[in-house]
């Protein structure tokens, strides 16, 4: 959601790799849960990959870019790096998830979202 930048509110943008594997599905669902919990605004990684100017400049101006990558291929972080955008990557296989093996359940999404949320808040310093 676009917002007026008149206030002093910090801008946090969340993107997920949303890849084809189950870990990509998990990244997407965790990102949506973080958005629902007002951790930030969700943006489209595909739009960044396509270098659509509005998305790129929004990310460039954000105070924090939270990137959820499902697996170590790290498509999300690589897109940000290629564009020279500051970002924080949260790699979901570091949260006990195995690519191609772990079934994605509501309970798993909620649990991982909570842990990622804690890590994001800790980094806020």
């Amino acid at each position: 959601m676009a917002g007026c930048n008149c206030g002093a509110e910090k801008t946090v943008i969340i993107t997920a790799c949303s890849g084809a594997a189950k870990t990509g599905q998990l990244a997407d669902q965790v990102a949506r849960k973080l958005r629902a919990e007002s951790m930030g605004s969700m943006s489209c990684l595909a739009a960044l990959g396509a270098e659509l100017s509005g998305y790129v400049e929004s990310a460039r101006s954000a105070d924090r870019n939270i990137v959820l990558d499902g697996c170590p291929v790290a498509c999300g972080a690589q897109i940000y790096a290629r564009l020279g955008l500051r970002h924080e990557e949260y790699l979901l296989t570091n949260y006990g998830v195995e690519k191609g093996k772990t079934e994605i359940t509501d309970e798993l999404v909620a649990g991982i979202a909570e842990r990622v949320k804690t890590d994001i808040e800790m980094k806020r310093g």
Partner: protein
Amino acid sequence: MKLQILGTGCPKCRALETNTKAAVSELGLEAEIEKVTDIESIMAMGVMMTPALAIDGIVRSVGRVLTKDQVISYLGGGE
């Protein structure tokens, strides 16, 4: 040349509009300046914070009130 000021009408959006008009005037450019205030249209351009400035359909700045000189720099192809 088409310049678009994206914002819902807050003081910062109006300041960007003023500075953009001043930059265009100083450079003596013939440019169409459009104010985009509809939030759906702003979001359709991928802009998540306002004010923003687009030049010929390319978003160049988001969430900042560019000074006149900064706008001049953008219009000249700079950063």
